[in-house]
């Protein structure tokens, strides 16, 4: 069954079309219009590890479109703890639902589920692997701000080694001709395998450890959280993390239309002083998770988003 496991499952034309559909669905996502395109459909939310935004936004997306949701619930009390295989869990949920959104700690779990299931699978993160629905909402946010995805200067900063959102996103940005700069501490650099892949696709990739020097030329700065547990001791963490904190005063020379994004949750890497600047876009970005996932579910279920939704929807 087709699913969305990695961004390679989508052509550039499909990405553009799904983002166009998402754009039209904005009033529905905001609760300003009722448009039950997925009425009678059930989403299975299978989150084998904690998630707030991804799980909730999938649930909101399905409910805004008139569908319903069943949840796996806490893994500790489900049959997973009794040793059930992923294959068996998928066989069961496949029978209960029309589409499955899944997050799993093991890499490759989403493709494995896709090969086991008859209903479409949406990968909501598999280990340090892929997170394509996050990439779609990131692309939506960037396009919303700049009107295009092409030719932008995008700086990805922070933990590029373990952050799965930046792995999927960097691949997608390259496909749309963006210039990508990786700013990270040496120990958290983008994995060589990914850099090699990007270069093979003709990308010019710049790697640096100096985030502040990149600000003035950037159209997008995508921050990620540097996790304490990746470091051997507190001092080492404090030293590294300190260089990847943005404050409002750092943005004085930035382009007016530059946006700052973050997959959230943030800890210290974006100071609250940034929230009130014109550059802050991370909360809209989190909201965009709903509209991007609405559009993706329609696409995977073969449901057309009407060109003129005002004719079909009911204004609330």
């Amino acid at each position, binding site marked *: 069954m087709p699913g969305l496991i990695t961004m390679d499952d989508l052509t550039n034309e499909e990405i553009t079309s799904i983002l166009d559909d998402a754009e039209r669905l904005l009033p529905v996502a905001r609760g300003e219009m009722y448009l039950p395109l997925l009425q009678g459909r059930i989403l299975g939310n299978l989150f084998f590890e904690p998630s707030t935004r991804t799980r909730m936004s999938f649930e909101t997306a399905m409910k805004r479109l008139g569908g319903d949701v069943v949840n796996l619930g806490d893994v500790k009390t489900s049959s997973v703890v009794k040793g059930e*295989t992923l*294959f068996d869990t998928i066989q069961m949920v496949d029978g209960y639902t029309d589409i499955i959104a899944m997050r799993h700690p*093991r*890499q*490759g779990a989403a*493709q*494995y589920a896709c090969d086991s299931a008859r209903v479409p699978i949406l990968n909501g993160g598999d*280990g340090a692997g892929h997170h394509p629905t996050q990439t779609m909402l990131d692309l939506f946010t960037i396009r919303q701000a700049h009107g295009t995805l092409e030719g932008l200067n995008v700086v990805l900063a922070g933990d590029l080694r373990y952050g799965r959102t930046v792995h999927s996103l960097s691949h997608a940005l390259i496909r749309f001709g963006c210039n990508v700069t990786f700013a990270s501490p040496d120990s958290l650099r983008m994995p060589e395998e990914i850099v090699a892949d990007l270069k093979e696709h003709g990308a010019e990739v710049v790697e640096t450890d100096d985030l502040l020097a990149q600000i003035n030329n950037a159209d997008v700065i995508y921050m990620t959280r540097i996790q304490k547990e990746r470091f051997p001791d507190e001092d080492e963490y404090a030293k590294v993390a300190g260089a990847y904190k943005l404050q409002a005063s750092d943005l004085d020379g930035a382009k007016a239309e530059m946006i700052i994004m973050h997959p959230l949750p943030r800890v210290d890497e974006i100071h609250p002083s940034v929230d009130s600047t014109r550059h802050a876009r991370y909360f809209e970005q989190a909201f965009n998770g709903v509209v991007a996932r609405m559009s993706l579910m329609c696409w995977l279920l073969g449901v057309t988003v009407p060109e003129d939704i005002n004719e079909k929807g009911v204004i609330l």
Partner: protein
Amino acid sequence: MSQEGNMRRVTAIKNGTVIDHVPAGKALSVLKMLGIEGDMSNPVSLVMNVPSKKMGGKDIIKVEDRELTQNELDRLALVAPDASVAIIRAYSVAEKLEINLTEEVVNVARCTFSNCITINPREPLPHRLVVTKRDPLELRCRYCGKTQDIEGLVDSLL
């Protein structure tokens, strides 16, 4: 030692399969990949690290009274892609076979990445390694997408 001398290290077999030009030192891995264990009744002869004009050094394996199938031989593509295989009947070469590297290596070895979903031995779907490059050989796990350590794969044979 001449090529003829190499072959004479073990006697000619009447019926069975001869696998020649196995990279030096890989014969035991080849046996493992073919599922040929010590408790089988067929006689198996092994010559390791003998000189070879073509390869510098090589291993040779002779399995008596068993004709290996093309399917079995294709499993060898991971460790001995250039091996030459002869089916012997009544002391003569009855057939020559080549090892083919298929698009995907299925249920030969498990992914070497420690956090791959296939690490759980109870998961029932086949282990699938996709050939992404042929020379030099590069394989990626269909599920987790990790590039495999070809040397390491020998330790994760199924």
